């Protein structure tokens, strides 16, 4: 080992030591968060890392920026191997992977280094072009600075250049030492062959040092930059919610009885460590904000800002908290109000578009939900118009003040069996039809209810309803942060369902479907809950629904995806398939934003019970888009979507019919 090696060793130890110090500091900040067990299902987690992380599936949803990023990321993975080799060789000059690898493999490795260095350089060039010339809108806003990005891109570019040049000059100084597998370096060496050997050697050492110092410098820049995601994002993906359906989208359980119960979050230490890790994983790419229905229509919410605010607040409060000392001004100052305002939190429709889109599996919605919980449970702060909904849920078991005695009025003259009547006769139903509050009280939605009941009757399904014993399961209260009211209503519902030994539930409301199917298990209610889209589709597929022989109207139909059906539960095909089977001659058209990219109707997250006073109305935005497909019929599979699409169509004077898929099928029944 030469003096140069010792010098490098010193620099290496210093740099990694400094990085280790910063890393443990950030880890200690993340550790300030609330406990959250995230080591269950290790294989599902690894699968997520493989798909979302390594295979870049989510980032590739943006085909342009996605490819660009994937090239840089895969380049980073490949070139990291070379970096390891280079750093070791800096201390032990004789070291090389060729010591372990068979020749062919080693040559492949050498070629991969050059190839990716070139690809990455190309991608970096495009990245500059994109930021400077194309300027995608989502990269701006939320006080996001481009400087950090330019510096990072510059550093990566310089890393690639110095890597190639150091190898090229080595070849010039000592011809024949560099294998031909380093094709790019060899080509550069050929171009530089006129440089004298001594000068080339010096240039090689300079490039080598520049590259090594850049690597170490970059490493130490990470903790101060959004580029920290190269370290954190794979972990973040590993710890993100697992399971592909439903369950990943449930709200966090909350024990209201616990002595140390904390009612939601008002500041960073009340968030979970995963929420805080989300902050250090965010690359500020703005994908979440660019798909947020509230943001698109001019509301004050930006999911990216929620996550960045949590990070900024953590950087501000973390040092004092971690040291166990808190300055008073840091206490009176908190995440809620000083960083994230009430208006931002209430603007959310809980549509999950942000969560769906985030390439590093950040859960923006979880933070919003926890902060809403704090507002309602700890401070009783919410838009004034929400109070009647809460009070009515408590007193009437429905967000609207309708008498529960009128719940089954839609069934007048239809001979629909009631659970209690069946039980009194010692009979049972195979299936409980959970009608829901909209389906029971809203005049328009009652037509869907009747249509679905007619289909069930036509197919001879032995079903029953709860009638007056049905009341809201509390989902709107939960989404609005009122966990206390939710648990009261949910537990009561579970008790009723268990009393009748209900096993299978069908419902035409995606919110009821999600709540009872995915969130009731938190409170001990386990049922098979099927949304009517899936149920009808099955009946159609089994040939149990007798349809009219004629072809029916040649409608041009578009389908509006419900968030709680789609992004929450991955039900995209059943409603479409139902329409196709019922109306084989229809002309089916899709809007640009569809399926897991579908735009919310604006009613989710309790927004149904709030005013929408800022910006364009979300339902108007959506109706405009759906009408632009040329459709004469908008099909929906959710009573809330139904209301919003109807109101939107009226507001835009659009000549379209809005129909539930059950109505479409019922209109085609043979009798």
């Amino acid at each position, binding site marked *: 080992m030469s003096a140069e090696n010792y010098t490098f060793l010193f620099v290496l130890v210093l740099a990694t030591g400094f990085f280790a110090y910063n890393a443990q500091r950030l880890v200690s900040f993340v550790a300030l968060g609330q406990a959250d067990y995230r080591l269950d299902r290790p294989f599902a987690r690894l699968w997520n890392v493989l798909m979302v992380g390594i295979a870049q599936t989510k980032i590739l949803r943006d085909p342009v920026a996605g490819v660009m990023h994937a090239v840089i990321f895969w380049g980073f993975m490949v070139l990291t191997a070379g970096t390891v080799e280079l750093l070791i060789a800096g201390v032990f000059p004789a070291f090389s992977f060729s010591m372990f690898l068979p020749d062919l493999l080693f040559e492949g490795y050498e070629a991969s280094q050059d190839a990716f260095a070139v690809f990455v350089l190309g991608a970096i060039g495009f990245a500059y072009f994109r930021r400077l010339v194309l300027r995608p809108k989502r990269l701006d806003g939320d006080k996001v600075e481009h400087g950090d990005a330019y510096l990072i891109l510059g550093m990566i570019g310089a890393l690639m250049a110095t890597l190639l040049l150091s190898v090229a000059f080595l070849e010039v100084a000592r011809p024949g030492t560099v294998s031909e597998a380093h094709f790019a370096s060899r080509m550069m060496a050929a171009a530089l062959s006129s440089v004298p050997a001594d000068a080339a050697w010096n240039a090689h050492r300079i490039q080598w040092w520049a590259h090594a110092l850049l690597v170490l410098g970059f490493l130490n820049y990470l903790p101060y930059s959004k580029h920290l995601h190269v370290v954190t994002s794979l972990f973040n993906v590993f710890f993100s919610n697992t399971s592909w359906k439903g369950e990943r989208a449930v709200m966090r359980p909350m024990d209201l009885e616990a002595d140390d119960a904390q009612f939601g979050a008002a500041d960073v230490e009340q968030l979970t460590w995963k929420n805080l890790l989300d902050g250090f994983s965010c690359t500020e790419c703005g994908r979440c904000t660019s798909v947020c229905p509230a943001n698109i229509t001019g509301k004050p919410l930006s999911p990216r800002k929620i996550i960045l605010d949590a990070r900024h607040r953590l950087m501000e409060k973390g040092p004092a908290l971690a040291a166990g000392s808190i300055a008073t001004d840091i206490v009176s100052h908190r995440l809620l109000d000083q960083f994230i305002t009430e208006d931002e939190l209430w603007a959310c429709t809980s549509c999950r578009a942000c969560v769906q889109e985030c390439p590093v599996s950040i859960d923006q919605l979880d933070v919003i939900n926890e902060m809403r919980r704090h507002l*309602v449970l*700890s401070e*009783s702060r919410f838009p004034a118009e929400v*109070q009647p909904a*809460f009070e009515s849920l*408590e*007193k009437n078991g429905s967000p609207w003040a*309708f*008498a529960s005695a009128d719940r089954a009025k839609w069934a007048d003259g239809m001979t629909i069996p009631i659970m209690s009547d069946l039980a009194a006769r010692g009979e049972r139903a195979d299936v409980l039809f959970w009608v829901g509050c909209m389906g029971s009280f809203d005049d328009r939605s009652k037509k869907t209810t009747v249509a679905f009941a007619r289909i069930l009757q036509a197919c001879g399904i032995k079903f029953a309803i709860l009638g007056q014993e049905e009341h809201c399961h509390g989902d709107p209260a939960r989404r609005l942060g009122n*966990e206390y009211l939710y648990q009261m209503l949910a537990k009561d519902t579970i008790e009723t369902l268990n009393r009748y030994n209900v096993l299978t539930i069908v419902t035409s409301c995606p919110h009821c479907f999600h709540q009872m199917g995915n969130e009731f298990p938190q409170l001990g209610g386990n049922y098979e809950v099927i949304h009517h889209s899936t149920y009808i589709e099955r009946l159609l597929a089994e040939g149990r629904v007798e349809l009219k022989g004629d072809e029916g109207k040649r409608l041009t139909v578009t389908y509006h995806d419900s968030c709680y059906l789609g992004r929450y539960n991955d039900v995209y095909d059943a409603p479409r398939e139902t329409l196709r089977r019922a109306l084989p001659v229809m002309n089916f058209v899709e809007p640009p934003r569809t399926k897991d990219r579908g735009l919310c109707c604006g009613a989710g997250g309790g927004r149904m019970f709030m005013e929408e006073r800022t910006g364009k109305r979300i339902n108007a935005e959506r109706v405009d888009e759906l009408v632009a497909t040329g459709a004469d019929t908008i099909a929906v599979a959710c009573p809330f979507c139904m209301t919003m699409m109807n109101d939107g169509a009226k507001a835009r004077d659009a000549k379209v019919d809005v129909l539930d898929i059950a109505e479409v099928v019922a209109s085609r029944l043979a009798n």
Partner: protein
Amino acid sequence: MKIAVCIKRTPDSESRFKIAAGGAGIDESGVKFDMDDFASYAVEAALQINEKQPPGETIVFAVGPDAIQETLRKAMSMGADRAVHLKSDAPLFDGISIAKALAAELKSGGFDLILFGRHAFDSSAGVVGTATAEMLGLPCVTAVSHLEVSPGKGSARREIEGAGEVVEFSLPAVVTIDEGVARPRYPSLKGIMAAKKKPLESKPAQVGPVRVSVKSMELPADRPPGRIIGQGSAAVPELVRLLQTEAKVL
């Protein structure tokens, strides 16, 4: 200010009522009870006065069976400091007899202000507040839709048919509260937890002799089903006739 608020527990107004067997009361099965709406306006008004002009104490009172303690807890979850339950199973339709129980309790309390709801949903009589004031010898303003108090005096607006009456009065006084004074707050879970630990004193009520009692209850004739009376402006004379003779609202 030391403020007393006398509250009542009544059935939810959206309930579909049935008459109980015996015909002298409503069938309470399946009926949800809660603090009466007007009582909750009164609680809110008291809390706001004490929040705007601290220090103060808000004490809630109620006459009734044990179930009313839940309603008193709710008032404390909104922010009242303590509660007094005057236990009585006496029927609730003789306002004068209940006023006697409250007057006996409130007499020596040294309150600056005593608030009531303007009337309760069930009896819809509006007797207790005013009668209590009379028994205590205090000035009383009823059915107040706007209230302001400062040490020693208050001013209020009350709605009379087609007009608003603006009054001034001296404290201590009794005021009965109409809607419009304040929208009752929604108790936070923190408030609900805190209310469990606040003092609630229960003692027998000194209810006066009962001279008003329920003989029977019945449901009014069903509202006639809605009907479309005609097309276009030609139907207007018939509409006006129905509004005058049948609905009696014109």
